[in-house]
C-alpha cells in the first residue's frame, strides 16, 4: 500500500512537473473553447495549407516605426499592424475567403428582426498575462473606450450606424454579451469585430472608471515608452522589445487560443521580428541577401526576383487577377468655381455626363498596366474593391464591351472624340484644340501628389491621350497636403488620387453618398443631389438594411453599375496586383491575401506560417 501511495505520489509529481515544464516553455494547455484552425482539411478555406511545427524566428520588414502601442487612439497602419497582432475582436473575417468567423466569441445568434445579436464568448481562455477573458472586457472596450468621448478614437466612426446611433453593448453574464441596434444594419458583424482590450490592464487610465487620473489620460496610455511587459493582448504575438529605426521583436503569446487540428498551439513561430527599413530598395536587397524571410514587393521588383527564384529557393507570388484593396481614380470636380461664380464653362462641362464618359474612354488602362506596373495590375471600374465578396465585376470585366451590357469604358480615342463632338466641344478656331461654344479654348488642370511616380504616370498618360483628340489637359503635380486642401475646398479641377478600401462596400458611404464628407467631386449634392445621386443613396441604404447577403449583392451590383456607368462621379484607373515573395522554407506563406500589413506579410495569417 505504501508502495502504491509512493508510486502515485511520484506520478503526480511527474505530471505536475511536466505541466509546469510545458507552461515554462510557453505552451499553455488547450482550453475546451480553443479555436481550431482546420489546416489542410478539404472543404475548408484552409485546404491548401498544412499543419506545421513550432519554433524559429521569422524576419520581415516594415517601412516605418510604430508610433504607440495603443490601438484605440492610433490612426495609421504602421501602428495598427502591431496592434492587430496583439489583439483580437469578437469576430473577424477569414483572410482567405473573407467570411466572418468566430474569434473571441465562439458563436452568435441574431434575433429575427436582426436588431439583437447575442455573442457567446469562449470560456477558459486567457489574456497574455494569464488573466481570464470575460464579458467585462468586451463591455469595457465598447462602453468605456470606443464610446467614451474623452477617448480619441476613429473606431467610434466605424461603429456609428446610419441613423447616428451606436450599437448598445450589454453584459448578460460572464460569457454572454448582447449588442442591440436601433435599425437593421447588415455590416454590423464587420464593425463589431473591433479589437477587445483588457479591462484589468487599462481601466486605471480611464478617467470615468478611475477619477484619480485626469480626463484624457487614456489617450497617452500604452505609448512607446511603456514597458512591453505591461502590454496585454489576446492575439498570436506580443511585443517583446522595440529599438527605434531598427526593429520590433514580437514573441508568441503563451495563452493564444488558436490550435491546429493536431492540437498544436499557434502561432508556430517563437519570435517574429519586424525590421524597420525605410527604403523599399534596401528591403529588396535585404531579402535577396537572405535577411528577410518574406517581403511585399513592387511590380518592378518581380523580374529581378523571378531570375533568382530557383537559385535562392524562393517563390515570387504574383496573382495578376487579385488586385490589392483600394481604389485609384480621377476626380472631376463638378463644383469648380461654384463658391465665387467663376469657371462657369468648365463647371457646365464637368457636370455633363458625356464629358465624364469621354474622359473614361481616354484612360488607357493597358498602357498604365504595362508601363507603370510591368503588366502586374488590373483595370478598375468599380468603387468596390476587387476582393470584396460584393464586387460585381467578374461577369463584366473582360467580357463584351458595349455600352448596354457592360460598364467598362474601353480605351477609344474615337468614342471619346465622338462624345465630345456630341456635346459641342469642338475645335472652332482651327488651332487644333477643342473650344467651348463661346469660342474659348477648353483648358484644364490635372493634379496629383508630386513624388508618387505611379499617379504621375497615370496623369501623364491621360493628358497625352487627351491631347491626341485636341483636349488640353495640363498636368501639374503638387504637394500632397496642397492636393488634399484643393479637394476639400473644391478648388481643384481634375485630381488623380486613391482611397483605401476593404470588403464592405458600405465603408465607402462617406465617399459616395450625396452628403458624404468625402463626396469631394460634388459637395453641393448635400443640398441638391442629382436623380442618380438620390438613387445611389437609396441603394446604399438598401445595402445595409437587408440581412440577406445575396440580396445585398444584387443591391451593390446595381450600385456599382449606377456609379460606374451612369453617374461617373469618379473615373477609375488601374489597381496593382498582389505581389509577394517568400523563401520556400516558410510553410503556409502561399496565401494570396492582401488583407496584409504594409510590410506585406499576410498580416492575418502570420500565426499559420512555420519553418519547414
Amino acid at each position, binding site marked *: 500500500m505504501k508502495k502504491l501511495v509512493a508510486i502515485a505520489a511520484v506520478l503526480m509529481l511527474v505530471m505536475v512537473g511536466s505541466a509546469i515544464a510545458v507552461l515554462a516553455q510557453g505552451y499553455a494547455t488547450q482550453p475546451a473553447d480553443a479555436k481550431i484552425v482546420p489546416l489542410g482539411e478539404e472543404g475548408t478555406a484552409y485546404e491548401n495549407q498544412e499543419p506545421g511545427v513550432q519554433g524559429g524566428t521569422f524576419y520581415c520588414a516594415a517601412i516605418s516605426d510604430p508610433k504607440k502601442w495603443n490601438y484605440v487612439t492610433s490612426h495609421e497602419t504602421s501602428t495598427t499592424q502591431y496592434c492587430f497582432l496583439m489583439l483580437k475582436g469578437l469576430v473577424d473575417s477569414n483572410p482567405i475567403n473573407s467570411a466572418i468567423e468566430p474569434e473571441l466569441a465562439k458563436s452568435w445568434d441574431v434575433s429575427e428582426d436582426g436588431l439583437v445579436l447575442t455573442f457567446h464568448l469562449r470560456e477558459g481562455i486567457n489574456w497574455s498575462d494569464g488573466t481570464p477573458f470575460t464579458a467585462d472586457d468586451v463591455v469595457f472596450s465598447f462602453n468605456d473606450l470606443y464610446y467614451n468621448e474623452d477617448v480619441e478614437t476613429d473606431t467610434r466612426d466605424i461603429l456609428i450606424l446610419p441613423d447616428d446611433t451606436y450599437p448598445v453593448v450589454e453584459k448578460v453574464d460572464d460569457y454572454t454579451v448582447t449588442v442591440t441596434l436601433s435599425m437593421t444594419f447588415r455590416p454590423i458583424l464587420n464593425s463589431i469585430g473591433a479589437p477587445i482590450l483588457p479591462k484589468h490592464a487599462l481601466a486605471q487610465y480611464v478617467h470615468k472608471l478611475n477619477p484619480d487620473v485626469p480626463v484624457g489620460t487614456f489617450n497617452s496610455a500604452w505609448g512607446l515608452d511603456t514597458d512591453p511587459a505591461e502590454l496585454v493582448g489576446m492575439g498570436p504575438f506580443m511585443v517583446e522589445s522595440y529599438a527605434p529605426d*531598427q526593429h520590433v521583436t514580437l514573441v508568441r503569446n503563451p495563452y493564444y487560443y488558436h490550435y491546429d487540428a493536431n492540437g498544436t498551439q499557434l502561432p508556430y513561430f517563437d519570435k517574429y521580428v519586424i525590421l*524597420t527599413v525605410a527604403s523599399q530598395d534596401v528591403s529588396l536587397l535585404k531579402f535577396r541577401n*537572405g535577411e528577410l524571410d518574406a517581403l511585399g514587393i513592387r511590380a518592378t521588383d518581380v523580374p529581378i526576383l523571378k531570375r533568382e527564384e530557383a537559385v535562392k529557393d524562393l517563390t515570387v507570388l504574383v496573382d495578376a487577377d487579385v488586385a490589392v484593396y483600394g481604389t485609384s481614380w480621377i476626380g472631376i470636380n463638378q463644383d469648380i468655381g461654384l463658391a465665387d461664380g467663376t469657371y462657369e464653362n468648365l463647371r457646365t462641362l464637368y457636370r455633363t455626363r458625356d464629358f465624364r464618359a469621354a474622359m473614361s474612354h481616354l484612360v488607357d488602362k493597358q498602357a498604365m498596366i504595362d508601363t507603370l506596373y510591368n503588366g502586374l495590375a488590373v483595370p478598375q471600374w468599380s468603387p468596390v474593391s476587387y476582393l470584396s465578396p460584393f464586387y460585381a465585376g467578374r461577369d463584366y470585366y473582360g467580357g463584351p464591351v458595349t455600352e448596354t451590357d457592360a460598364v467598362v469604358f474601353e480605351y477609344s480615342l474615337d468614342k471619346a472624340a465622338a462624345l465630345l463632338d456630341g456635346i459641342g466641344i469642338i475645335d472652332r478656331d482651327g488651332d487644333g484644340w477643342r473650344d467651348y461654344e463661346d469660342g474659348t479654348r477648353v483648358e484644364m488642370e490635372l493634379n496629383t501628389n508630386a513624388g508618387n511616380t505611379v499617379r504621375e504616370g497615370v496623369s501623364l498618360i491621360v493628358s497625352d491621350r487627351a491631347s491626341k483628340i485636341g483636349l488640353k489637359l495640363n498636368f501639374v503635380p503638387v504637394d500632397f*497636403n496642397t492636393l488634399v486642401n484643393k479637394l476639400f475646398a473644391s478648388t481643384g479641377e481634375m485630381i488623380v488620387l486613391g482611397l483605401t478600401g476593404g470588403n464592405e462596400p458600405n465603408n465607402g458611404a462617406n465617399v459616395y453618398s450625396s452628403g458624404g464628407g468625402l463626396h469631394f467631386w460634388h459637395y453641393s449634392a448635400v443640398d441638391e443631389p442629382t436623380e442618380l445621386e438620390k438613387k445611389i443613396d437609396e441603394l446604399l441604404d438598401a445595402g445595409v438594411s437587408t440581412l440577406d447577403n445575396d440580396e445585398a449583392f444584387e443591391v451593390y451590383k446595381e450600385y456599382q453599375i449606377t456609379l460606374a456607368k451612369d453617374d461617373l462621379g469618379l473615373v477609375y484607373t488601374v489597381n496593382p496586383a498582389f505581389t509577394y515573395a517568400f523563401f520556400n522554407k516558410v510553410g503556409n506563406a502561399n496565401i494570396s491575401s492582401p488583407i496584409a500589413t504594409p510590410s506585406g506579410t499576410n498580416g492575418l495569417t502570420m500565426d499559420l506560417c512555420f519553418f519547414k
Partner: protein
Amino acid sequence: MITYIIRRTLYMLPLLILVSLISFVLIQIMPGDYLTRAQMNPQITQHTLNQMKARYGLDKPFLVQYWLWFKQIITKGDFGTSFETMRPVFWTLFMGDRLMWTLIIASTTMLLTWLISIPLGIYSATHQYKPSDHALTFFGFLGLSVPNFFFALVVLWVLVAIFKVGNYGLGVGGLFDNRFIGTSWSLAKFGNLLWHIWPAWLVIGTSGMAGLLRYMRGSLLDTLSLQYVQTARAKGLPEHVVIYKHAVRNAINPLVSMLGMSLPGLVSGSLVTAIVLNLPTVERAFWSALQMQDQYVIMGGLLFFSLFLLIGNLLADILLAWVDPRIRYS
C-alpha cells in the same frame, strides 16, 4: 574671455526665440496640418476631425498657438507633445539611443574624414599641379558630387549582388545582423557593428573630403608663399620642418574654425545616408515629423539644431583664439 563667452551665451536666447518664431510661421505656411492625412480616411467623420483639431489646438489662430507653446516652455519647461506619439517632443526625437548613435556615427565619420583629408591636403599642396594633386582633387570631387543616397545604395548592392555577403552570414543596413538582435554586448557584436558602420563612414566621409582637402591645400599654398617661409628655407631648415613646423601650423587656423562650425553637421548632416543605411538618427525622427507635420516635434528639432549651430559657432571662435595668439576677444 569668460565675460565674452557669457555674453555670447546670453545672445543665444533672443536668437533662439526669433528662430522659433520664424520656424513657427514657416510651419503655418506649409499647406495642411497634422490632420490633413486623416481627412482622406473615408471612415473618419467630420465630428471626430473637429474634436481632434480642438484637442491638438490646431483650431486656434497661429499666434495664439505660438504663445501657448511659448508660455508652456517658460512656465513649465514643457516644449510640447508630439501628436503622433503623445509623448514630449524631445523624448520623441531622442527616443531609444538615437542621440547617442547619431553622435557616435557622425563623430567617428568626422574624425576619419579629418584624419584622411588633412594629410592629403598637405600632400596636394606640396605636390601642386603634379598628376597626384590632380588625381586627389578628382577623386575628392567625385565623392562630393555622387549623391549620398545613390552611393549608399550602390555600396549595399555591390555587397549583396556582387560579393554575396549573405552567403557568409553577413547582413546589410541597420546596426547589427539579425542574430545579434536582443543579445548583450560582446566582441563579436562590436565587430558586427563595425561591419555595419563602415558604409556610413565611406559614404558620408567621401562627401566631406573634397571640401576639407581643398581648404587645406589652398590655405597651405597661401602660407607657403609668405616671406617667413622663404626665410625659413633661406636659413637652410630642412623642408619637412619648414612645412610641418612653420607652414602647416599657421595654415591650419581657418580649418580649426571650420571644425567648430561642423558641429551642427554632427546632428544634422547625414539624413539621406541614415535612411538608406537604416541608421537610427535624430534627423530621421525630425524628418518623419516633417512628413507628418507633427508641428511641435518640428519646432523642437529646429531649436535643437539651431542650438547646436550656435554652440558650434561659439566653439569655433574660442578654438580660433586658442590656436592663434593674435586673436583676442574683449
